[in-house]
């Protein structure tokens, strides 16, 4: 656990890639073995492996690495949403603890790790800052093959990565608008009807995933 958190707190893409390379050369090699054709284009779904290690082995090293990358971002998100630095610090710790406790619920064929952490942080925000309950949709029961297929996992993580890239490429003003809708507490009436979200095919992918469910 005595790792250097500074390395993963680099904000630049190159710093991040360095961090990935430093911590995850093994994970990347594993992926290469399984998916030789597409590995080059998807270097970033390694956090999935981290969560799996937390889930199956209670791996504290994996958790420390994930914490080093995501906790400072969660804290920034909570502060932008109106939390004081002290409140954001406490909530971030609770969000990351929830991640550990709920690691078994993460489904990498339906979300990236950052999306999943976003939903935990958002719910914590509603609970702690807005003092509201958060009604969630009914849990869906998955079919006999509880373990998601590797190809589904790969595609979802790839699409999430493409979405991140597309968001980065948006014009500044449009990006600001989206950020404001997510972090600025706009009422739904103030959210522009045409946000120009670069959703690509991720929506149809998720729709497809839902057809695989066994219905009660």
């Amino acid at each position, binding site marked *: 656990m005595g790792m250097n958190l500074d390395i993963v*707190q680099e*904000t630049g893409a190159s710093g991040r890639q360095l961090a990935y390379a430093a911590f995850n050369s093994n994970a990347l090699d594993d992926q290469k073995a399984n998916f030789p054709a597409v590995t080059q284009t998807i270097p970033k779904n390694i956090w999935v492996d981290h969560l799996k290690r937390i889930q199956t082995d209670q791996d504290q090293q994996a958790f*420390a690495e994930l*914490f*080093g990358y*995501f*906790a*400072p*971002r969660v*804290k*920034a*998100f909570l*502060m932008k949403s109106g939390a004081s630095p002290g409140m954001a610090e406490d909530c*971030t*710790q609770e969000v*990351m*603890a929830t991640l550990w*406790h*709920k690691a078994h619920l993460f489904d990498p064929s339906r*979300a990236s790790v*950052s*999306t999943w*952490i*976003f*939903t935990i942080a*958002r719910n914590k925000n*509603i609970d702690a800052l807005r*003092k*509201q*309950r*958060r*009604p*969630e*949709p*009914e849990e869906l029961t998955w079919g006999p093959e509880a373990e998601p297929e590797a190809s589904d996992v790969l595609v979802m993580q790839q699409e*999430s990565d493409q979405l*991140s890239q597309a*968001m*980065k490429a948006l014009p500044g003003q449009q990006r600001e608008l*989206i*950020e404001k*809708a*997510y972090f600025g507490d*706009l*009422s*739904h*009436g103030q*959210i522009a*009807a045409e*946000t120009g*979200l670069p959703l690509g095919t*991720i*929506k*149809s992918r*998720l*729709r497809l*995933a*839902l057809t695989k469910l066994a*219905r*009660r």
Partner: protein
Amino acid sequence: MNTMNKITHHLSDQLLIGYSAGSLPEAFNLVVATHLSMCDECRAAAQSFDSIGGALLQAQPTENLGDAALAKTMALIAKGPKAAASKPVGSDVPDPLSAYIGGGLNDVKWRPIGLGVRQAVLKTSHAATARLLYIPSGAAVPDHGHRGTELTLVLQGAFRDETARFAAGDVEVADEELHHKPVAEIGHDCICLAATDAPLRFSAWIPRVAQSLFRL
């Protein structure tokens, strides 16, 4: 819970983004979560909007955490997960709604509001009001307009108004412009979950009196 019925009236992107961002009032979140439990189309859309949140989280500039943040988080983890809210068992309404009713439709404490129509206000934050409406076959909800937004989700039966027909799973999003008089279809009593972020505006004076008495 998935209705066999084909859902034709869905939630707007603005509302789904608001749900994903966590900026909607609790009563609206309840209608959204209940509709998502019945509608795969909107569930996939909501999850794709969550992935926008994930991409934004990942692109956040970081906020440094206190020195002992990781150690404190490990201590939180050691305490074990918070007790989860008990899951409602076997209800005739989707789980998120069942949690607010404290059971199924048989457990609702209806109050008459005139012309055979009954309602039950559900306890949410005050920014908006959630209520169940029971409209007997052939009966009408008094002609009314809205100052804010009104969401009406059909749970059973069907109603028609000046705009269209709404059956189980369908949700009507009515804004300030819509002045309507929903009528339950002959044959089945109609039960809806409705949320409003401002008091309704009735055209006739009798409902206006009822409104002041019954918190419509």
